[in-house]
């Protein structure tokens, strides 16, 4: 095969592919190498993995990560689906409401984090004040300092941040549902709940599958909100896996151990990425 036989398409994509290889493939290979060597570069087998896995905090961190991801995704989906269905109804000012709903999604993550941290403030936070006014709580809660409330609070922030994305996708999905489907069940006198359960949700299934996988990946990547609000505290109660990688590397300078954690993290996340790509490929075919 000579150079002339190569499709021009290859030349067009080559610079980008080389750049991405340098930025992604090389670092990943390098991570793998670092994970099985010690600080002097000597081969150390599974030692970094063993140390990382047997650390006393590992179980808590895995638990926190699962808690955060599952909690975030469930509430993002729940709120997003409800909002999407609501915004698909006819009412006055609908387009304005649709724009306003996007605010959480548009606001930078760090700004959302700072704003919520202020709202969750124990003494002067508006959330404690409102909850006490309504009578739900009798004294201020230290949302971000209490080990039992810190994760729910962070999940609330993440759910708030991302639910508009789900809503927009759901809305787009609903707009492609043929009107005849609704008319068919309305003739039979079906209720609104019946429409949601038997028409909207089944029609939305493919969209929901792919956004669930995306939300999972994003939640697993969720450093900004947690790190900037709590830094993983109090006492590791909000420490999640990706933040632990950062902490090991840049606060303890345990690069090899951080690399071992990165490998584990990558293996786990690649399962979800593969699932997503399969769903994605299947949808492209339709």
């Amino acid at each position, binding site marked *: 095969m000579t150079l002339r036989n190569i499709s021009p398409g*290859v030349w*067009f994509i080559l610079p980008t592919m080389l750049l991405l290889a340098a930025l*992604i493939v090389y670092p*990943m290979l390098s991570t793998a190498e670092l994970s099985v060597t010690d600080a002097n570069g000597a081969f150390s087998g599974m030692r970094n993995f063993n140390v990382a896995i047997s650390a006393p905090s590992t179980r808590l961190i895995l638990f926190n990560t699962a808690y955060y991801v599952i909690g975030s995704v469930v509430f993002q989906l729940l709120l997003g689906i409800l909002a999407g269905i609501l915004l698909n109804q006819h009412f006055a000012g609908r387009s304005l409401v649709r724009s306003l709903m996007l605010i959480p999604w548009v606001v930078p993550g760090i700004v959302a984090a700072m704003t919520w941290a202020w709202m969750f403030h124990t003494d002067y936070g508006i959330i404690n004040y409102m909850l006490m006014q309504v009578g739900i709580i009798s004294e201020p809660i230290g949302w971000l300092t209490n080990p039992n409330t810190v994760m729910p609070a962070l999940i609330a922030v993440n759910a708030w941040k991302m639910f508009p994305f789900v809503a927009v996708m759901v809305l787009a999905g609903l707009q492609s549902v043929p009107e005849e489907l609704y008319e068919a069940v309305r003739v039979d006198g079906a209720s609104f709940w019946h429409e949601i359960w038997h028409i909207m949700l089944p029609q939305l299934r493919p969209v929901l599958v792919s956004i669930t996988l995306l939300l999972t990946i994003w939640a697993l990547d969720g450093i900004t909100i947690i790190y900037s609000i709590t830094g993983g505290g109090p006492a590791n109660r909000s420490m999640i896996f990706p933040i632990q*990688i950062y902490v090991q590397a840049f606060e303890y300078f345990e690069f090899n151990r951080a690399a071992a954690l990165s490998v584990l993290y990558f293996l786990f*996340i690649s399962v979800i990425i593969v699932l997503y790509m399969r769903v994605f490929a299947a949808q492209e075919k339709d």
Partner: protein
Amino acid sequence: MKDSRRTLLISLPVAILVIVAVFPFLWMAVSAFKPLSQLYTIPPQWLPDPPTLANFKNVLFESNIPRYFVNSLIISIGSTFLALVFAVFAAYGFARFDFRGRSAALAFVLIGQLLPTATVIVPLYIVLNYLGLINTYLGLILVYLILTLPLSVWMLTGYFRGIPKELEDAAIIDGASQLGVLFRISLPLVTPGIIAVTLYSFVATWNEFVFALSFATEKEMKTLPIGLAEFSTEFDTDWGAVMAASFVMTLPIALIFLVMQRMFVSGLMSGATKG
């Protein structure tokens, strides 16, 4: 009768939705205009009386925030532009040609877009350090290509596919070169795509946190998100100033969003699902 019941059934959840979505943003804005004495009161004061610009003065003249703002601007624009240059060619190649390994290459681009940043921070730090690019604009601009390049390639590929192939074929028959076709015919037609990609890349890099946290540690090189996160420790958490700085950081994004809402939303959507 049924109508009024329906109105209530819809307007109540709509009201809740609007409050949930808007309130934190409003609370940030309101807090930014409050003097210290009105921030720390029990019960909280709803509106600043009178509103003050003291927090903004503090942020703009007595903190490092303006410097961080400029840093963010340089890095975001640099990375957005660099990604665009590479992505125009790659996207055109993906959209117009069929070749062996095309779908594998596209899949790789998608993986690049989905890959969490934490997986590569350690080796990237080592490489940047080796090249002397820690705490430089160029270092972050290059690293941010991980965010902007896959995204730009994906989105632009979709736009290029939308151009009828006949237009290009006609030009080729008239003797235009492949590159000539790209620059004179296809590129002008995907202007909306270029704008969408530029905006989305800008927003993605403007908001980026982890890379900036790891690779820009010197005071002179930090970006706005990191500056904002450190405000709390730096000043023993002056919440008025934090909210004012948040307000300043949100402004460019809000402007982009206001001017091009439609494009922004469709861009974000295609950015997430179709690439």
